[in-house]
């Protein structure tokens, strides 16, 4: 779960990391009031959960409360990379002398945390690594021993950060690590970490991503989840326990297992088609889940054909067949369905579907033998061949 900047900053402040003064606004009038309180010179920051909001016009400077009000009127409702701006974080402007970077992330290769420090900041971390390799340093923190001071010193020295900042940056890195482990975060990041003209070091942005699997242990964070930020269909899918990602093609994909779902998408692509989504019904999907999956796919009007590609392990093909049959019985399915069933209870599943097709005289279900064949068929159907 990715938290909004304003939420992350609240956590950061609670742990003693300095941030600029600021408040959240839900409409232009609130923006004006907050701007007045902060003395007029403010930054308006769109609270949308996508990267690159600055470049996309989601961050604006205002020199007076009136100007802030006018800018806010334009910004509310803007759509940034598919995310509608519904919240603005209004912060005092900082006079910035220098931008730096500090962050922690889970490092799968070393099975620990990576502490990354850069004495230049403001860009994304790959860009810094490429443009300023001598200004960026990382160290692995073993979760069994925790973060030690020598590791902080090492990255500070290696990043060639001016020594006058070391003490203050250390005072920020330590609580940042505390925030990471306390909240079971996958990422805590300050970019940029700014040095102001008057010599203060302040977190000008704040990122905090929490491990979704651990959210049950952090009910106070779970509450902060902003469902308005999730695609409508994705939200419904999540509620139903399905892994769904909306894409921009026209072939609806339903498969079991993330790998199989991706492979199915890849096959469609290799055959010259475009998948409309990623949808993994997971292991051991019930007929109910399969039915829901069909419903979710159909919410996307661009879908021209559904390719359901099941290889049964825990998932039983007869359950899948039943789910599809229920879907056909309970809802209108205006597009053809390519169905491939293999693995556990394959025969039972194919038999159920065969009987259903025969009995109801449904011509839009195409039962195929292999996933390669299915992909080909689905692409043909989508192209109207």
């Amino acid at each position: 779960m990715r938290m909004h900047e304003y939420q992350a900053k609240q956590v950061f402040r609670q742990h003693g990391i300095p941030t600029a003064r600021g408040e959240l606004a839900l409409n232009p009038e609130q923006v004006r009031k907050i701007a007045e309180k902060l003395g007029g010179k403010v930054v308006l920051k769109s609270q949308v959960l996508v990267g690159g909001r600055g470049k996309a016009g989601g961050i604006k400077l205002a020199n007076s409360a009136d100007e802030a009000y006018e800018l806010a009127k334009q910004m509310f409702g803007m759509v940034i990379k598919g995310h509608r701006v519904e919240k603005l974080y209004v912060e005092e402007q900082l006079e910035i002398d220098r931008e730096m970077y500090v962050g922690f992330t889970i490092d799968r290769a070393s099975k620990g945390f990576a502490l990354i420090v850069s004495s230049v900041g403001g860009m994304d971390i790959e860009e810094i690594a490429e443009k300023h390799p001598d200004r960026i340093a990382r160290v692995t923190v073993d979760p069994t021993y925790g973060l030690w001071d020598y590791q902080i010193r090492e990255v500070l020295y290696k990043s060639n950060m001016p020594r006058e900042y070391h003490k203050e940056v250390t005072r920020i890195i330590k609580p940042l690590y505390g925030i990471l482990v306390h909240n079971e975060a996958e990422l805590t990041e300050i970019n940029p970490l700014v040095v102001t003209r008057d010599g203060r070091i302040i977190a000008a942005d704040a990122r905090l991503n929490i491990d979704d699997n651990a959210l049950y242990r952090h009910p106070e964070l779970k509450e902060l989840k902003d469902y308005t930020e999730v695609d409508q269909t994705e939200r419904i899918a999540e509620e139903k326990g399905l892994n769904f990602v909306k894409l921009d093609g026209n072939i609806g994909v339903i498969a079991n297992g993330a790998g199989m779902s991706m492979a199915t998408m890849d096959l469609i692509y290799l055959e010259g088609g475009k998948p409309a989504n990623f949808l993994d019904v997971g292991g051991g999907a019930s007929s109910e889940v399969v039915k829901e999956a069909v419903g979710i796919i159909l919410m996307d009007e661009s879908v021209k054909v559904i390719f359901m590609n099941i290889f049964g392990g825990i998932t039983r093909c007869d359950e899948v067949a039943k789910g599809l049959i229920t879907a056909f019985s309970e809802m209108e399915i205006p597009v053809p369905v390519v169905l491939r069933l293999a693995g556990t209870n394959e025969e039972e599943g194919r038999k159920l579907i065969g009987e259903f097709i025969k009995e109801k005289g449904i011509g839009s279900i195409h039962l195929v033998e292999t996933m390669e064949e299915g992909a080909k068929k689905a692409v043909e159907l989508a192209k109207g061949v």
Partner: protein
Amino acid sequence: MAIIIDENTRAIVQGITGSQGRFHAERMIAYGTKIVGGVTPGKGGSEVLGVPVFDTVKEAVEGTGANASVIFVPAAFAGDAIMEAVDAGVEVIVAITEGIPVYDELKVYKKVKAEGRILIGPNCPGVMSVEKSHLGIMPPQIFSEGNVGIVSRSGTLTYQVAYNLTKLGIGQSTVVGIGGDRIIGTSFVEVLEMFEKDDQTELVVLIGEIGGTDEEEAAKFIEKKMSKPVVGYIAGITAPPGKRMGHAGAIIEGGKGTAESKIKALNEVGVEVGRTPMEVAEIVKRKLKG
């Protein structure tokens, strides 16, 4: 031979009284796997599927001489279950459970490695040493005994490839689903190392997906240490960057970990990568003949 598990493997099932645990324990027993007991705290002293149930893994190991365990307990308790198994001296632990918090996985990983045990998974379909032992949730009927080892991050893709191989008359030695999480107990490299030493295995199929650099590490290992041929498959060519695709592992991390980078790394060390699961099987057939 075979790797990780064989006919001498004596396994317990942690969570045997749950619906998943029971269902799969039954299938494993039916396959001929030596399932010698189960563990469910609070249900010690009872019996399920003809095997005794214990309160703790320690008691189960003492009571049955088990040297392996399959874990079906819910995500919130699965890290604990693995730790318990390690502490009780279990050598091979197969963790099926999906959705374990990553901080639990980190601790578990460190413990497993410190004690020198083998953890397969979590979030994996298990291990199948064909005709010898089967720990997990794979559909046994699709496998046939033979000389191809399979190691995979994806469950269903593994079945698909094994199924294709079997249809072409090519059997498998051991099939290992290493799991889709970011932090997993056993890497591609570790399994490749075992296959390299296994005299039953003649060729290895490696099934990867986007995210992480495990496949790139595998390529390095293949170049330096593998004498046996390896055939690859990588899922996720069309996965959009920055989107989660179900597995926590399947995140594109800033340019690295793409399908392209993995396919390139494998190709560069002489590994042919099939574009479809069917093609993978066909390459294997050609290589085994050649």
